[in-house]
């Protein structure tokens, strides 16, 4: 548990992706089996114990500590598990802290009534860092600050280039902790684990954004066009061994969408967009968010936010891998497959006919529905390759909406940007002359602009709250965003999708920035003509 606790401690504070990978790689390369396997399971969320409730932990610590001092400490520290980890009185013993494997196996086999005594024994034998890891693991609150994908990239690095992270992805969902066959494979001491028909995830093919320079070189006849829908990209996997819905990041989200799982009466792997579709109309992303927030939706949520999948691609038909086929052939197979099965809650993403790039550009500009982000362009001869191969698929987003907003607060960034005020909360003027915050942006500017912005923030600070500075109402930023949505979580009543800074308007007086009304008129739905 010591190595795992150390890893956890460093991951939580480490902002850099490469540094996180280095930490993970070292853990996997140096820890023995099966400890590292259980560690991997804990990191990727596959080991979520809910063996102990916070009340049990509190009861344990209250037996060992003065309640007055515990209350003062809790107030000071905030987090319960952290307070307990820090305050737990040392009990000198010869037993060292438990190994990861011992913890997992004991939790699986110990009756609930005996757990407090077991846990107390472990806490006695551990230092604060191990105690923290133990308590977070046992209460199912382990938040690592590293994605499952990062763990797989680190595993691929342990294999020193012999195995790609995407290959690990393709066997991942057929494996169970502590992953002995996986570690044997990446260590060069075993064969590739055989998924044997298990419903596993395949890394999706992704698109590059289409820049102005790429447009000129585009050969229209080589490409097929589809709408780019504003939902979440999903992979539907149904085999004789099971059904899964995976997010783009390989998270298993099947439980959140039971009506889709129920509709998967076939054996195939499909790529598509999960959307809320009401009376044939795709609804704004905010509606889908209502479903994404729920792990297990009730009947009401299913009725109020009906979901469906718009199919883009067919990767497997039964056991047949179609990914090496060109897009055009896969499309033919997809259409035939859809006609044959006509699965409920699934329709086809329509192909948009066009002859020239100019024509396509007109189509793109004409799409006003908030649920459409723009266009996708896919080469007709493109095989389905994991990752982002150059020149195969393009995403051509609609021109964003923009507002001129006033900077209200600035916060320091993370990692390389920790010395810069790089996160900006901006606001718009309300009727009554008050400036109300409408969003936060931390990208879109150049490095040179960041230096200017940082200097301006430092020279115009009026209040400081920890890492946040409140600034004079004097700096206007042009903010671009994909859509505006009504929100009751924000004081202004509106939330922006993907806000980013497009221009620094040093020239513009703050009083001439946009009014909140202007933004309200851009809200999704209000624009749908």
């Amino acid at each position, binding site marked *: 548990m010591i190595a795992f606790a150390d890893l956890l401690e460093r991951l939580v504070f480490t902002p850099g992706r490469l540094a996180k990978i280095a930490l993970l790689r070292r853990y996997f390369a140096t820890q023995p089996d099966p400890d590292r396997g259980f560690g991997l399971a804990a990191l990727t969320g596959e080991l979520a114990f809910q063996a102990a409730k916070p009340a049990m932990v509190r009861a344990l610590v209250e037996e060992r500590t003065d309640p007055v001092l515990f209350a003062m400490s809790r107030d000071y520290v905030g987090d319960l598990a952290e307070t307990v980890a820090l305050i737990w009185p040392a009990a000198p013993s010869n037993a060292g802290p438990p190994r990861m494997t011992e913890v997992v196996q004991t939790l699986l086999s110990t009756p609930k009534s005996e757990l407090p005594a077991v846990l107390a024994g472990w806490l006695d034998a551990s230092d*604060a860092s191990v105690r923290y890891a133990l308590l977070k693991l046992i209460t199912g609150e382990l938040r690592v600050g590293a994605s499952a994908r990062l763990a797989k990239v680190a595993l691929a690095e342990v294999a020193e280039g012999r195995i790609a992270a995407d290959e690990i992805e393709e066997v991942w969902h057929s494996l169970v902790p502590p992953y002995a066959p996986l570690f044997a494979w990446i260590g060069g001491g075993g064969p590739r684990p055989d998924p044997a028909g298990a419903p596993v995830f395949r890394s999706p093919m992704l698109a590059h954004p289409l820049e102005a320079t790429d447009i000129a070189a585009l050969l229209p006849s080589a490409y097929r066009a589809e709408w780019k829908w504003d939902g979440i990209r999903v992979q539907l996997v149904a085999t004789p061994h099971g059904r899964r819905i995976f997010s783009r990041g390989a998270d298993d989200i099947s439980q959140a969408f039971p009506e889709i799982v129920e509709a998967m009466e076939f054996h195939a792997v499909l790529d598509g967009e999960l959307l809320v579709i009401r009376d044939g109309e795709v609804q704004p992303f905010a509606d889908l968010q209502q479903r994404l927030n729920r792990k297990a939706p009730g009947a009401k949520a299913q009725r109020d936010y009906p979901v469906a999948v718009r199919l883009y691609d067919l990767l497997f038909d039964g056991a047949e891998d179609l990914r090496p086929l060109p897009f055009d052939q896969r499309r033919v197979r997809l259409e035939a497959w859809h006609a044959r099965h006509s699965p409920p809650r699934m329709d086809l993403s329509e192909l948009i006919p066009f002859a020239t790039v100019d024509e396509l550009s007109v189509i793109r500009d004409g799409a006003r529905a908030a649920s459409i982000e723009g266009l996708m362009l896919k080469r007709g001869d493109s095989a389905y390759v994991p990752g982002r191969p150059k020149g195969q698929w393009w995403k051509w987003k609609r021109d964003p909406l923009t507002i001129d907003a006033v900077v209200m607060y600035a916060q320091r960034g993370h990692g390389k940007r920790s010395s810069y005020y790089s996160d900006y909360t901006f606001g718009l003027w309300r009727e009554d002359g008050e400036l109300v915050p409408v969003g936060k942006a931390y990208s879109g500017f150049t490095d040179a602009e960041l230096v200017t912005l940082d200097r301006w923030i430092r020279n115009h600070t009026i209040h400081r709250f920890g890492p946040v500075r409140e600034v004079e109402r004097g700096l206007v930023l042009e903010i671009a965003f994909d859509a505006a949505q009504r929100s009751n979580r924000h004081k202004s009543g509106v939330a922006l999708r993907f806000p980013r800074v497009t221009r620094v308007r040093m020239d513009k007086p703050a009083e001439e920035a946009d009014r909140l009304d202007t933004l309200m008129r851009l809200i999704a739905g209000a624009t749908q003509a």
Partner: protein
Amino acid sequence: MPPHPETWLKVRPDGLYCEPGDFFIDPLRPVGRAVITHAHADHARPGHDAVLASPETLALMDVRMGVGRAGAVQQALPYGEPISMGEVRLWMEPAGHVLGSAQVAMEWRGSRAVVSGDYKRQPDPTCLPFVPIPCDVFVTEATFALPVFRHPPAEHEVAKLLDSVALFPDRTHVVGAYALGKAQRVIALLRRAGWDRPIFLHGAQMPLCAAYERLGIPLGELLPATVAGKDKLQGAVVIAPPSAIADRWARRLAEPVVCNASGWMRVRQRARSKGVELPLVISDHCDWDELNQTLDDVGAPEVWVTHGREEALIHEAAKRGIRGRALRLVGYGDEQEDLAEPAAA
């Protein structure tokens, strides 16, 4: 029966005042006669007429304030040498906080009070260890007086730092450390752990490190970080004031791993809000156990708490029959470890 210390040692707006000796201890404003426990800015302020302190503290005050600014008349008092101040017998013993730090012991008519200043019990290669003095009233700080504060051995934290240097050999490890005491302790601990390469310093750290060396604390090869090129700082350890580690100054470093050496680093939110990537729990104050151990060691029936989390310490002392009193002296930074040194360069 000897007089109770509260009849002759009093809290005044200027600080703690010893009436029969006519002097203040660590006064908050300029006074006629001041006894100074140690050279940190919140305890050693400029502009007094006469100053009594340990020889090392006077030397460090000269470095910080400029020669002569510590007081018009300066008297150096080595540890363990009693003198008379008015009707009071006074002597100093090591406090183990920073080089020269002293506890002030005072006796008047058979009654004895000890003002400990800031102190710690963990070993420190740059200063003499704390000596418990039995007394009637013990005056203590309570910076880390909550049972969540338990400082691990400093060697353990330095090992963590060196492990990280080995894992990220191309990056600079910049350690935030208060310029007086903490910086030199971290350097000395690194040397003991076998780190014999040059250690790079922020400009604000240079004069006090030089002073420590003059006072007989060897720190090995120290170089200014400001003139070293980025490539020279790859794999290097740089010591800088906590205010500089995640600010503009740090942009000259090679992909820095931001470390901070402070007792506050024990609490995650503290480390996170400062943007620290590697928190090092190294403190020049007592943790909870050391504070309570010290109360037992000095055996005083009464303890006065100057600043910090006095409520918790007084609560715990009461359980052992020790009477507690909160002095609530405003001006001693309980956040001292976080305080910024003005950036010199």
